């Protein structure tokens, strides 16, 4: 069959038209071999534009298509879909970026036009080598792996589990509930934690659709949205392979280690506790000094490690108020002093909570350079006066920091961490619970310090994301532009295996060659780039295709 290539140049409103002489481009490329038709359009991505494109492909019986418009990141998928609707294999199409790479960055119109022409020529030189790659469909697994059995993990599991969606909840300790188990009450409502948590844990344990693994660890995860394979080491030391469509990381937090700041006297003096230790003492009803006496004067030190970690942990001020309430409820005459650098009690309910707590006779002192000595606290007031405060117990509120195994998990899941070590969200505002890996979500304190209410909001957000994107019975179209490894050329050095970011290459020990798992391969091309013999190559980005394009671009 004779080839007939269609070339369409998008004006992108004024974006391209104003800085590229489109007619001149048309003039040059019209005479190139196999070019059947060259046309311009105001806005090809518009409904009108897409209709025009589809009609044009069909009318002219085009066998290949070149569109010069914007970045492939923006509209490659759009135009591939048009190709499909018009009955043209979408891989017989090439998008040339003459907006970001020409019109927007070159001031001189003549030069921009020259470069746009060059790029279109390069695409025309490349496109005869395109192969009509076939699209495949695979089943999408609706099941979910939730890592972390704290409140966030529990909430996510409950929201997601159902008759057509199983949830695997993996918890590293022997119980569900996480740190919350040791909180007697919750701020600011001061309702019992038991009521909230026990009920939820019971629901999890009774659910037929949630499989809980305690004392368990996720050992490995490969795959992508809709098709993950996780290896879970259970409490019985078995290694189970679990197939899921999405993964939720709700691994919570650790506390900043106050011994790193010696002046807080932690582990040096008696009766200096961290907030979590205090919660436990309170829960056990044993708020007592080392000598067995009840405390008479207690200081709560805020912002422990805030400067070192470089952020406000968001929850310490509010739970410090709660601590004051615990103390006042148990020992009405106890003196409670809060030593803070900045007070943060935002939101519609905390102001009242703060004022009421203050009205109970709880002191709030703005203090700097706090130094804890035996039963006394030295500090500087706002007006730089040195003060001594006699106390018999100190509660430190250490910063919330990423859990100790966060880096290991990040590496295993191939998701990024932010500069503080928390799992990084895809976008602070637009993708707060998504990660750089499609199908892997983060929620709760694993993503950053936050309170219970916000953690639950995130659990709900993750559930919404998963419920709307992975509908049971949905089919997935894996990437067609995958890598392939020639059995004849591969010598088995396994470099490709080590550079593959998706775990998509395995080694056939019998044939002694590397093999690509086409379902897992995302077509990043790392293997093709690292293979010295060219045994690994990437479909649609073959050496010939790239060579042809480059030769013409540089001519």
């Amino acid at each position: 069959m004779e080839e007939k290539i269609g070339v369409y140049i998008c004006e992108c409103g004024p974006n391209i038209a104003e800085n590229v002489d489109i007619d001149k481009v048309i003039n040059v490329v019209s005479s190139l071999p196999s070019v059947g038709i060259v046309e311009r359009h105001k806005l090809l991505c518009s409904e009108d534009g897409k209709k025009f494109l589809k009609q044009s492909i069909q009318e002219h019986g085009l066998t290949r298509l070149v569109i010069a418009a914007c970045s492939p990141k923006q509209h490659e998928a759009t135009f591939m879909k048009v190709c499909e609707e018009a009955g043209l294999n979408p891989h017989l199409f090439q998008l040339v970026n003459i907006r970001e790479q020409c019109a927007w960055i070159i001031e001189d119109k003549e030069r921009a036009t020259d470069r746009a022409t060059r790029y279109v020529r390069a695409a025309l030189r490349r496109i005869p080598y395109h192969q009509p790659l076939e699209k495949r469909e695979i089943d999408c697994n609706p099941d979910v792996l939730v890592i972390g059995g704290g409140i966030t993990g529990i909430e996510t599991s409950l929201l997601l589990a159902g008759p057509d969606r199983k949830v695997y909840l993996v918890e590293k300790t022997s119980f569900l509930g996480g740190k919350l188990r040791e909180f007697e009450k919750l701020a600011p409502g001061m309702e019992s934690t038991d009521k909230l948590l026990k009920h939820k844990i019971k629901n999890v344990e009774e659910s037929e659709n949630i499989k809980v693994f305690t004392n368990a660890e996720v050992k490995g995860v490969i795959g992508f949205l809709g098709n993950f394979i996780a290896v879970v080491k259970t409490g019985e030391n078995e290694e189970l392979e679990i197939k899921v469509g999405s993964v939720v990381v709700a691994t919570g937090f650790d506390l900043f280690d106050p011994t790193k700041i010696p002046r807080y006297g932690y582990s040096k003096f008696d009766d200096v506790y961290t907030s979590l230790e205090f919660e436990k003492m309170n829960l056990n009803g044993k708020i007592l000094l080392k000598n067995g006496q009840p405390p008479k004067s207690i200081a709560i030190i805020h912002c422990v490690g805030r400067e070192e970690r470089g952020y406000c942990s968001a929850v310490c001020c509010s739970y410090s108020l709660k601590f004051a309430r615990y103390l006042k409820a148990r020992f009405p005459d106890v003196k409670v002093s809060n030593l803070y650098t900045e007070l943060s009690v935002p939101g519609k309910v905390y102001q009242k909570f703060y004022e009421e707590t203050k009205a109970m006779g709880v002191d709030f002192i703005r203090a700097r350079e706090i130094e804890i000595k035996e039963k006394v606290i030295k500090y500087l007031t706002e007006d730089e006066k040195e003060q001594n405060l006699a106390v018999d117990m100190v509660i430190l509120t250490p910063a919330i920091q990423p859990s100790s195994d966060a880096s290991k998990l990040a590496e295993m899941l191939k998701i990024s961490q932010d500069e503080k070590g928390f799992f990084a969200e895809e976008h602070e505002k637009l993708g707060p619970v998504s990660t750089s890996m499609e199908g892997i979500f983060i929620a709760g304190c694993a993503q950053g310090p936050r309170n219970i209410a916000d953690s639950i909001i995130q659990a709900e957000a993750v559930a919404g994301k998963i419920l709307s994107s992975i509908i049971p019975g949905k089919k997935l179209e894996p990437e067609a532009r995958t890598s392939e490894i020639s059995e004849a050329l591969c010598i088995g050095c396994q470099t490709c295996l080590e550079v593959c970011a998706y775990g998509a290459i395995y080694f056939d020990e019998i044939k002694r060659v590397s093999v690509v798992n086409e379902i897992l391969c995302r077509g990043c091309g790392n293997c093709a780039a690292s293979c010295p013999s060219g045994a690994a190559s990437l479909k649609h980005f073959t050496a010939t295709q790239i060579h042809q394009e480059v030769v013409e671009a540089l001519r």
Partner: protein
Amino acid sequence: MKGARVAVKDSIEKTVLNILSKAIDKKLFDVILIPIMVPAGDSYAWVLAQDKSLLDSASSLPPIMSVQGAKALSSVTRMGKTNKKIAALMRPCEIRAVIELSKLSQIELDNIFLISMDCPGVLPLKDWLKDPTKGINSFRKVIQRFVDGDPEPDQSVRPVCTICHRFYDSSAVDLHIGILGKKGEYIFFIPHTTQAETIFAELGLSFKDDISHWQNGVDEVLKQRKKKRSLVQEELKPEVIGLDKLLDTFSNCINCHICQSVCPICYCRQCYFDSDKVKQPPDDYLMRAESKGNISLPPDKILFHLGRMSHMALSCVGCGACEDACPMSIKVAQIFSLIADRSQELFNYIPGESLEEPLPLRVFEEDELHEVETP
């Protein structure tokens, strides 16, 4: 570090072979991979010697490098562990190539016992071929001069050997035999693994002797070699820097790709540059000729060398096999050493030094290579 000081009887070679032959007697190894003089007497071949009588014609330090030892070892271990325990006696550059190939899964080191020896260099194959008997004699002098600690390298060895700065052991060997430091009266057996200690203890060697004489001997030669290496490289730079100079240097390349086929690090089943992937449609070359005014054919000669350089610079052990084999006497190995030194420095990587150190290409560091960023 301690070693066993062994008195030399007859010659260094005879002393070493004598111990190895005892090791075969005691079945401490099943076979020894060692260069043996071919019956015609004009070359050496790698042989898996099971019969110790073969060791009579073996050479622990042959005057030439006919085939790089790593290639020999790869041919028997590339499919996995051997069922025989093989002791391989090689030059340090060959050992280093062995380590690199094992990282590339082309050599399986299980059941392999690596022995290296201080190396004075080898004679150029072209000189050797003219008169092998004379070659044997002159190489004896090379060894003598080396162990005597003469700081000037012998000019009869290959130029790349005169600038070799890794002529002694790598931490990745099982046993190293140091011949420097004691003017050939004594040699030192230096174990790097407990396996080496156990095996050689059975031969009556005990590793309790001080080896500082050897270490001093190495340091003396090393100092001189490093100086010479940078001198030679500085002289070479103006000859090869820039595409025009490089084109000039490789202009008499006859495109035989022998440098690639003798290179131990070029482990590909088929070289990328011999594959169809670099052969463009004939029209392309006509087009290139038209736009450039001319084109030299066959095309991409320089692309081959640049490609090979980029593929193996990080693992290049400077063995010189490429230059030795080049029929046009292009200074391939010297040029590669220049590139290799700088690239290896960039990743703080010494090829063949340790089995644990991963190949830089396989390590992802977010914070690296700022040198190549545009300011």
